[in-house]
């Protein structure tokens, strides 16, 4: 696969802070690349630099190996779908989608053909004459994507385009976007603060925090093996423990839990454990398991995603435990004491500054 986008040591300094701090990565042709981070992490700044709305302070951006230094947005082979969608309210659907083609000075029949092709692809055939203000949220979304895709960009940049949609529609659009990207083969660079969007759609995800990439990996690796405490906490759900002491293979948490974690060559102070890593009533013959007893505080029923909020004796800190979909545990109720275990590989320890 070719590198379609290369970002080299890119930084952006503003008067009083650094928004993007020496970021370095590449995106492969046809990939779905997400930049995931909390608001204020610099992901929007990074995207706007790629689109050309902001100049970089240091470093370089290359598209198909060509430096984009000094190239204005209208001349970059990228198009962007804005968070607000930015559909032109005084134009109808057709005029919106045709806007960029007209700027390329294509012939009218060619424009008509491309517009109706693209509207067909996003499932909006017959909507040409509609005012954009008359469309539903999902339809507007698709018009915005069509308007950018019709330009046949090398890279499509998407700035949290699902943010304004309601939950149900968002779930639906996630799948639709992913399928559309597969079908078209266009490279997507997608920024979001919603880890579930990123995990579902992306081939590669960069987790960004305070202007830097914490980890760049596949969704699976990101979830299974978060390299930093931030990634562990930000991607997926996890229980955070503060480590107060380590003696050999035994670590002691602030809550007084003593857990077995061999093979650490540093002094960790933070530990993350996923809710589904806990095993209810572990069998005695399981190896490398630390066990302890918790008391059920509440059952957070959420269908397939039901969890137990539990307390370790003598502490107010909650531990969330995923409840397997198993009739065996239906009898559990609030106040019950439960014996749980966790495998040593599922204890992710970090040194956080």
């Amino acid at each position, binding site marked *: 696969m070719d590198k379609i986008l290369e970002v080299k040591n890119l930084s952006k300094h503003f008067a009083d802070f650094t928004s993007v701090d020496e970021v370095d990565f590449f995106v492969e042709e046809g990939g779905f690349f997400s930049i995931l981070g909390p608001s204020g992490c610099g992901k929007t700044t990074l995207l706007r630099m790629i*689109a050309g*709305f902001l100049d970089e302070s240091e470093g370089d951006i290359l598209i198909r190996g060509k430096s984009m230094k000094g190239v*204005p*947005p*209208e*001349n970059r082979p*990228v*198009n*962007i779908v*804005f*968070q*607000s969608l*930015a559909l*032109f*309210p*005084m*134009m109808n659907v057709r005029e919106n989608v045709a*806007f*960029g083609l007209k*700027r*390329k000075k294509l012939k009218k029949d060619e424009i008509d053909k491309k517009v109706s092709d693209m509207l067909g692809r996003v499932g909006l055939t017959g909507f040409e004459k509609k005012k954009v203000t008359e469309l539903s949220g999902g339809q507007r979304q698709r018009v915005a994507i069509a*308007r*950018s895709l019709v*330009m046949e960009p090398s890279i499509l940049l998407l700035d949290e385009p699902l943010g304004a949609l309601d939950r149900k529609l968002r779930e639906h659009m996630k799948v639709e976007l992913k399928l559309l990207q597969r079908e078209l083969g266009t490279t997507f660079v997608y920024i979001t603060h919603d880890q579930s969007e990123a995990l579902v759609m992306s081939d590669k995800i960069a987790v960004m925090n305070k202007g830097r990439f914490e980890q760049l990996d596949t969704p699976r690796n990101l979830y299974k093996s978060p390299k930093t405490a931030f990634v562990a906490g930000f991607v997926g759900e996890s229980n955070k423990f503060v480590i107060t002491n380590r003696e050999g293979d035994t670590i002691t948490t602030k809550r007084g839990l003593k857990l077995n974690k061999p093979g650490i060559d540093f002094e960790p102070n933070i530990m993350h454990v996923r809710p589904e890593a806990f095993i209810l009533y572990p069998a005695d013959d399981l190896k490398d398991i630390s066990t302890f007893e918790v008391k059920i505080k509440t059952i957070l029923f959420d269908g397939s995603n039901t969890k137990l909020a539990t307390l370790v004796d003598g502490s107010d800190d909650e531990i969330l435990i995923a409840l397997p979909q198993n009739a065996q545990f239906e009898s559990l109720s609030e106040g019950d004491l439960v014996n749980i275990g966790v495998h040593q590989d599922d204890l992710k320890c970090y040194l956080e500054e």
Partner: protein
Amino acid sequence: MIEKKSFNAAFWLLIVPVLLWLVLLIVLPHIDLLISSFQAKNSAGEMEFSLKNYMAFFNNDIYWGTFMRTAGYAIFVTMLAFVITFPIAFYLTKVISKKNAGFLILLLLIPLWVGELVTVYGWMILLGDHGVINHFLMGIGIINEPINMLYTDFSMILGLLYMSMLFMVVPIMSTLESLDDSYIEAASDLGATKWTIFTKIIIPYSMPGIVSGAIIVFMLVIGDYLAPNILGGKSSLWFTEQIYSKFLQTFNWGEGAAFGFLLLLLSSGIIWIALKLSGQKLERVGQ
């Protein structure tokens, strides 16, 4: 039930003064004028229904000539006001910070505070043969003879522009304020040049504001009296002056009233044509 009753009482208490004001001060006098515009003396010297007052306008080329001149200048001043104020409105809403903009808008309001008469005299001091500008230009030796600026169409247009400009800035600003910067970025992302963004995005987007500003300025200018009368030159006959002279100099209230209604009708007609030509709808203008 009780609540509903008291709501009704409050409703009537609020609406009655408005209705009274409308009927007594606006509707009734206009009906009176409308009636007198259709009254003229017959050969026996008695008042009777007649179209004579309206015919007087069309039969005398001075009258409709003056109207055409007035309307032409009003259109010109309106366009000029747009060309001058649009960049100002854009600058105030999109370029500088809100805080500074507030201060500059306050400066723009000054001409309204001091009143039209004062600003008109201000222009006289500036533009006269021995006024500030000529004095300065002659002082630094650019010209030897004063330039004739006062009492010309130039000074009249300046005065008209000055008093009406603000009414163009404000509605344009309010539409531009709602213009999301992402529209501009999206257009430029789709390959539009600055000029295209201006003509295809910014102008169409602010059209409702432009149209309402243009209507206000046009009506203000076509109905103004002071600036054409005092700053205008010796040929600057304005249609309002003719209405004034019908009422006050020749005491021909019938013709005066007819001319007043013609001004209303013809200027509304011009606005209607302008809306049609630009593809705008009046209902959208208020938004």
